[in-house]
C-alpha cells in the first residue's frame, strides 16, 4: 500500500474515523488501533517481514530497560552493542550480504584467484528495514547517552517503532520526539488537521505531477545515454535531481501530513535543499532525519569537529561513506558518498559548513543577490552531477555516462521517443522552482498565504497540476522504498 494509491486513502479514511470517533477517549485504544493499522499497512507489502519489526521492537525495548537499569559503563556498553549488532545484523543480512559476497569474489578474481561463489542468497530486501532499524537503534543510543528514559509501556514503544506514516521511508524519528506524543493523549486540533491535509496535497503534487511525470524522460536518458549528446544528458541529470527530490520530499510531506491527522508531529525532513549555498547547507536541508542521525550517533561520538583537522576530515569521510552505504548495497552509492565528502571537506576546512545554519537564501530580501545565485547554481550543479552515481545501475554505467557527457559535447533539442511534449515539463519545473522559492521560509506550510483567494487559487492550481501531469501508465512506487 503506497501513499499515492486509492487503497491508502480508503485505509486512511477508515482509520481516521475510528481513531477520532470510536477510540477518542482512550490513548491505549488509539495506540492499539494505530499498531494494528501499522502492521496491516506494512503487511500489505509482505506480512512475513512483520516478524523482523516485532523482533527489533522486542530487542530494543528490553535493551533500553537493561541499559537504564545499570550504572556500570561496561554493562551499559554491552547492552548497547546487543542493540547495534542485532539491528546492523538484520541490515547486514538482508541488505548487504550479497554485496559483500560479490565484492569478495570480484576482489579475489581481480587478484588472480578464481572463486566459484555459491554463497549468494536470493534474499528479498524488506521494505523500510533501513529506516526502522535506525529508529530503534536511536532509542538505545539515547538511553545510553542518558538523553532519554526508557518506556515501560511496550504497546507505546511498539507503536513508536511501527508508526505507519513514517515506517517505510522515514522521517527517521527520535524517540525523544515521537515517543512522548504516543504515550500522551492526543487532542483533535482543527489547525493541525488542516495543516496535515495541506502537506499531503503538496506531497502528492510533488510525487504525481513532478516525480512521476519526469520518470519516463529520466528512464529514457539514463537507459540510452550512449546515443544522446551532452545537452540531453545534462537535461536527464537535472530532471533526475527534481525527480528524486520531489519523490522523496513528497513522500516525507505526505508522511508528516498523515501523522498530523492523528495528532502527531514528525520532524521536518526536507528544507528546500536546492536553494543551498554550499554543500554544508545542502546536508542541513536534505534528508534531515538521516543526516542528523549520522551527526548525533556517529560524527559527534567520533569527536565531530572538536578534534584535530585530520581527525575531523576522517570523521567527515566516515559519515559520508556510511551514508552512501546506507542507501544501497552498491559501489555507486559509496562513490556518491565519497564524492560528497570530497566536496564537503574544503567547506569544512574553511569553517563554512555551519555558515548558513539558521538562514536561507534571500533571508531578508525579496530576491537573492548575484553572489547567492552563483553559489546556489554551483551547489546544485555539484549535487546534480553526483546523482549520476546514485541513479546509475553500476559503476561502469556511471563512468560511461560521464565519459559520454564529456566526449559527445554537443547540443541537440531532446525529443522524447514516446512523444512527451517537453515544453510542458520545462514550464512545470519553472513554476515549481518559483513557487518553492516563494515558500522557502516555511517548509511545513506550503500554502502559507494570508489572502484566502490566493490560498484557494493555490489549492486549485496544485490539483489541476496533478490532473494535468497524471500519467496512468507508469510505476508509482517511491524511489526510497528500495533503501
Amino acid at each position, binding site marked *: 500500500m503506497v501513499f499515492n*494509491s*486509492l*487503497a491508502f486513502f*480508503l485505509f486512511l479514511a477508515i482509520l481516521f474515523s475510528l481513531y*477520532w470517533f470510536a477510540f477518542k477517549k482512550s490513548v491505549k485504544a488509539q495506540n492499539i488501533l494505530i499498531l494494528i493499522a501499522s502492521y496491516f499497512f506494512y503487511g500489505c507489502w509482505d506480512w512475513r517481514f512483520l516478524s523482523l519489526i516485532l523482533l527489533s521492537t522486542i530487542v530494543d525495548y528490553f535493551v533500553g530497560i537493561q541499559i537504564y537499569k545499570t550504572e556500570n559503563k561496561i554493562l551499559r556498553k554491552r547492552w548497547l552493542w546487543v542493540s547495534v549488532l542485532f539491528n546492523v545484523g538484520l541490515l547486514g543480512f538482508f541488505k548487504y550480504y550479497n554485496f559483500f559476497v560479490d565484492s569478495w569474489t570480484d576482489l579475489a578474481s581481480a587478484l588472480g584467484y578464481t572463486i566459484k561463489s555459491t554463497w549468494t542468497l536470493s534474499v528479498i530486501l524488506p521494505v523500510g528495514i533501513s529506516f526502522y532499524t535506525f529508529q530503534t537503534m536511536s532509542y538505545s543510543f539515547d538511553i545510553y547517552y542518558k538523553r532519554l528514559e526508557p518506556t515501560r509501556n511496550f504497546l507505546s514503544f511498539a507503536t513508536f517503532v511501527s508508526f505507519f506514516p513514517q515506517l517505510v521511508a522515514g522521517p527517521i524519528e527520535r524517540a525523544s520526539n515521537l515517543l512522548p506524543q504516543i504515550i500522551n493523549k492526543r487532542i*483533535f486540533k*482543527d489547525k493541525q*488537521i*488542516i495543516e496535515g*491535509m495541506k502537506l499531503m496535497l503538496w506531497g502528492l503534487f510533488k510525487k504525481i505531477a513532478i516525480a512521476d511525470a519526469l520518470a519516463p524522460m529520466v528512464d529514457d536518458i539514463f537507459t540510452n545515454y550512449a546515443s544522446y549528446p551532452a545537452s540531453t544528458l545534462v537535461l536527464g541529470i537535472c530532471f533526475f535531481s527534481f525527480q528524486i527530490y520531489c519523490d522523496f520530499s513528497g513522500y516525507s510531506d505526505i508522511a508528516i501530513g498523515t501523522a498530523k491527522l492523528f495528532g502527531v508531529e514528525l520532524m521536518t525532513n526536507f528544507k528546500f535543499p536546492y536553494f543551498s549555498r554550499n554543500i554544508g547547507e545542502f546536508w542541513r536541508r536534505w534528508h534531515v532525519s538521516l543526516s542528523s542521525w549520522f551527526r548525533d550517533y556517529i560524527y559527534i561520538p567520533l569527536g565531530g569537529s572538536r578534534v584535530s583537522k585530520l581527525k575531523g576530515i576522517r570523521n567527515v569521510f566516515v559519515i559520508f561513506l556510511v551514508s552512501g552505504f546506507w542507501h544501497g548495497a552498491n559501489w555507486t552509492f559509496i562513490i556518491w558518498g565519497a564524492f560528497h565528502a570530497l566536496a564537503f571537506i574544503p567547506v569544512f576546512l574553511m569553517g563554512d559548513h555551519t555558515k548558513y545554519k539558521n538562514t536561507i537564501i534571500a533571508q531578508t530580501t525579496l530576491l537573492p543577490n548575484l553572489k547567492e545565485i552563483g553559489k546556489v547554481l554551483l551547489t546544485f550543479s555539484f549535487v546534480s552531477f553526483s546523482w549520476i552515481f546514485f541513479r546509475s545501475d553500476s559503476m561502469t554505467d556511471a563512468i560511461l555516462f560521464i565519459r559520454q557527457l564529456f566526449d559527445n559535447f554537443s547540443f541537440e533539442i531532446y525529443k522524447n521517443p*514516446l*512523444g*512527451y*511534449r517537453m515544453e*510542458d515539463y520545462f514550464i512545470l519545473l519553472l513554476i515549481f522552482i518559483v513557487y518553492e522559492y516563494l515558500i522557502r521560509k516555511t517548509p511545513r506550510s506550503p500554502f502559507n498565504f494570508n489572502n484566502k483567494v490566493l490560498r*484557494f487559487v493555490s*489549492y*486549485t492550481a496544485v*490539483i*489541476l497540476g496533478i*490532473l*494535468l*501531469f*497524471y*500519467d*496512468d*501508465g507508469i510505476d508509482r512506487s517511491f524511489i526510497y522504498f528500495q533503501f
Partner: protein
Amino acid sequence: MKRIILKTGLYTVLILLCLEGIIRIFHLTKDYPKRYVDKFGVEKWVPNQNGYSVTGIRRQNFSEYHINNFGFNSYREFKPSYNTQEIALVGDSFIEGFHQNYYNSIGRKIENRLKDVQVFEFGYAGYDLADQLHLINAYNKMFEKIDYVYILLNFTDDLSRGTYEIKKERLKLESPLYKTLRKSKLIVYLYDIGSFSAVNSLLNQLTSFYKKVPAESKQKSQPKENETYEKRLDNFNSLVDLYGFDKKRYKFLLDTEKSPKKFLNYLNQNKFHYLDFGLMMDQSKKRTTLVYDMHWNDHGRDLIAGLIVNDFTNTLRNK
C-alpha cells in the same frame, strides 16, 4: 470537528467547480457524440453531430469531428451512384478518425490525390469484422454502387465472433447514468486520463481479497494458440458465408507483421485480396502514430492513403 468537515466540504465543492470550469474553458477533454442502432440493426452515430476530440492529457492532440447524415465521421455525405467512382473504407477507430480533423481524414487525402473519386469512410470505434460485413450486407444496395471496398482487419482483435449481434456493452454508454455522468467534463477528463482504473483496481483488490481465484483455474481458462487460430479462422469463414464477400471489389487492409502466416496463406489460397501496411509503417523514418495513443497520426494517414491510391490506380490500369 464540524467546522473542519464543513470547511473541507465547501473547499472541495468550490475546487471541483473551478476545475470543471477550467476543463471546459480550455477544452481539455473530448466531446462524446451520441450513438444508436438503426432500423437495420447497425450501430452508428446519431447523424449530424459536431464536436471536438482530445487525445492525450494536456490536449496533446485536438481535432474536430463531424458526423454526417449517414452516421459516420466524414466531411462527405454518402451518395454513391453507378456513374461516378467511389471507394469505401470500412473499419474501426483507425478509419473513424476522431483523432484527426474530419476534413483531413484518410478519405480526404485519397480524394486529393485521385480526381473524380469519392471516398466514403465507414469507421466506428470497436467495429470488428462481424460489424463491418454486417454493415455492408445491411446496406447492400448502397455498397453495390461503390467500386472498391477496403476493409481494415486485425486478425487478433476482429475475429472473436462468427455472427453479428448488437454489442450491448457499447450501448450501455448511452444509458441515462452514463449520459448524466458525461455532462460533467471533469468526470470525463478523469475517466480519459485513466484515474478510474485506480478505482477498478481497488475494487478488484477488495474482491480478490475475499474470493481468491486459484492460479490453476486461470491457466486452464486460457486456450492454446492453435485453438485460438482455428476458432478465429472459423469465425472468418462463418462471417464471409453469412454476409457475403465480393472478392473482386473487396480487399482487406492488414498488417502482415501482426497476422499469422497461416492466415495470410489461407487468404492467398482462397483468393481474398489484401494490402499490407505494416512493413511501410515499420520502415517509415517519421513517427506514424500519435502520442499516448496508437492511432495513426497525419504521416501515418498519408502513408495509408498513398497505399490505397497506388492499389486503386494499379487495379484500374490492369482492368
